[in-house]
């Protein structure tokens, strides 16, 4: 698995790109050939990064764009809001949800990028509540896959966050929905979890990892537009920072061509950076565009109308 810190600056690096595009490129670089990548609910960046890896350096990876649909895919498709399920179900290999879970429980090649509401210094994840569990200030969606994956033996849990802030990166999560390295050290092993644990977190500012011994979060690399200081200022606890920190390589021209032209022509990659009000407005525009393009024979985002 290529790690950002091991990469050389790439020839053909693009000069103008969005943070979303950079995150997709960076998350794709974490995937290895032959990996099995699961994506969950409302996570366009997770699907797009898996599809990008499939197009480039991981041609034999298997992608489950909707993990529990029961379908394994070896070919990407253009991401839409209306048709992601219909497309997932076409030309893939229909498996059973149950069998997908069997594999996830025992395989070291399975991988899922999660995006929980809170993450703490030991990589514990909260997607249950803000505030007190019994009388929460905000009731969040719930355990879903997060409470499953944190406890598995070999499953590689990675995370991403489109808003690196002290609200997301907190010293202690309000509630541990999915376990990371618990209290650090060998505390995970002590409760009977000999393997597993989170690997890496890609944010809009950089890349975080975990110290093997202490289980504490480390700074691995910064994005070209950010800095060590900015990341520290937006993290709610002390990060372990090595003497020299790498810079994440900019996405290449080829990656951007694939993301913009083939994988995400409608621009769903920007949705995860918006608040609910702005996002809903954009979603309405997007479904109108999708209907016009797919039903009305109108011009696509990348192609003029023919004849």
């Amino acid at each position, binding site marked *: 698995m290529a790690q950002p810190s091991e990469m050389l600056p790439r020839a053909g690096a693009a000069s103008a790109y969005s943070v979303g595009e950079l995150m997709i490129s960076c998350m794709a670089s974490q995937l290895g050939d032959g990996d099995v990548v699961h994506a969950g609910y409302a996570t366009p960046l997770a699907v797009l990064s898996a599809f990008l890896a499939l197009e480039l350096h991981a041609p034999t990876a298997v992608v489950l764009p909707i993990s*529990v649909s029961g379908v394994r895919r070896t070919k990407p498709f253009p991401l839409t809001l209306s048709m992601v399920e219909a497309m997932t179900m076409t030309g893939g290999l229909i498996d059973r949800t149950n069998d997908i879970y069997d594999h996830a429980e025992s395989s070291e090649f399975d991988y899922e990028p999660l995006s929980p509401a809170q993450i703490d210094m030991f990589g514990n994840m909260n997607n249950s509540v803000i505030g007190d569990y019994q009388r929460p200030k905000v009731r969040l969606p719930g355990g879903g896959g997060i409470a499953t994956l944190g*406890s598995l033996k070999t499953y590689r849990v990675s995370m991403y966050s489109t808003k690196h802030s002290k609200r997301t990166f907190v010293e202690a999560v309000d509630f541990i929905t999915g376990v990371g390295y618990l209290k650090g050290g060998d505390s995970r092993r002590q*409760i009977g*979890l000999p393997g597993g644990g989170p690997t890496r977190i890609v944010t809009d500012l950089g890349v975080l990892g975990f110290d093997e011994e202490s289980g504490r979060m480390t700074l691995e690399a910064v994005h070209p537009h950010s800095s060590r200081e900015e990341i520290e200022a937006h993290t709610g606890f002390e990060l372990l920072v090595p003497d020299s920190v790498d810079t994440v390589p900019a996405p290449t021209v080829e990656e951007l061509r694939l993301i913009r032209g083939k994988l995400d022509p409608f621009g769903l990659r920007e949705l995860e950076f918006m608040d609910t009000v702005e996002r809903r407005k954009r979603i309405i525009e997007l479904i109108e565009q999708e209907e016009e393009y797919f039903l009305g024979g109108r011009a696509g985002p990348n192609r003029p109308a023919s004849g």
Partner: protein
Amino acid sequence: MTQAVQLLSAESEAAKILAEVGDGATVAVGGYYDYRHPMALVRTLIASGAKDLTLVAPSGSIDVDILIGAGVVKRLIGGRVAFGLLGLAPNFRRAVENGSLEFLETDTLTLVRGFQAAARDVPFVLTRTLIGSELLRFYPGKVVDVDGEAFLQVLPIRPDVCLVHAQVGDRLGNLRVLSEGFDVEMVKASRLTIASVEEIVSYVESSRGITVPKYSRDAVRAVVEIPYGAHPTSCVPYYVHDIRHLLTYLETVEGGDFNGYLDRFVLQDGGVNHFDYVERAVGMKGLKKLEYLAKRGEEVVTSGAAI
């Protein structure tokens, strides 16, 4: 114990069966994300006046939220309730925040293993899920140590009634499901299943999708033909989910007018009529769009054409 499978042709027949769901029963609802929830049956269940139900739903959206809003749910056993990129589930959120809903929060894999324990009639199955998660505090199964590794004893979940919407069914009670989610395990675990289907055929065969055969040990399985019975969620390859209607629901409920939504779309003239609902909620033109999008999604993937 084999009983005759009832072949029914109208939602009024479904209403007759659902009227027998006693107060306090445990009801499982199929589908996942915004996909393939048995919405016509859910609306019928609300109209039946059932109350104090224990609802089992691994991955709910409008199905769970509308049942909670209608006041029929006392307790929810689930993994996640949300509307994906559209936002949080408003009735679910409010009911947990104000303490009026009892929520046994778990994760999807634990629920699937619970269904399997019921289907196999064993007292528990072992998983690694929830170990280290604070959700373990509320889960009734024990944790056991096997050579230094912790496992959770997942207890059987046996719903009294299971509601699913499948693509195809037949008079023997066989079903075929595409885009599986958790439905197959849920049906096998339940005492009684009521399935609405897009189409009743003379005999279900294993073509595209997962077949859910009717076994002799199953309790009654009733199959009701309700075209568009999953609206506003999807039933691919027939139609995609109706994002506009889901947004209408969210904005109506967030605006404090859940009862207005119920009056307009669920309890019409004191009863429920599926085709009246379809006309009011989406109309012929809207339905055709959702159908074409499902077809076009398949065509785009099959042809591999660039957008």
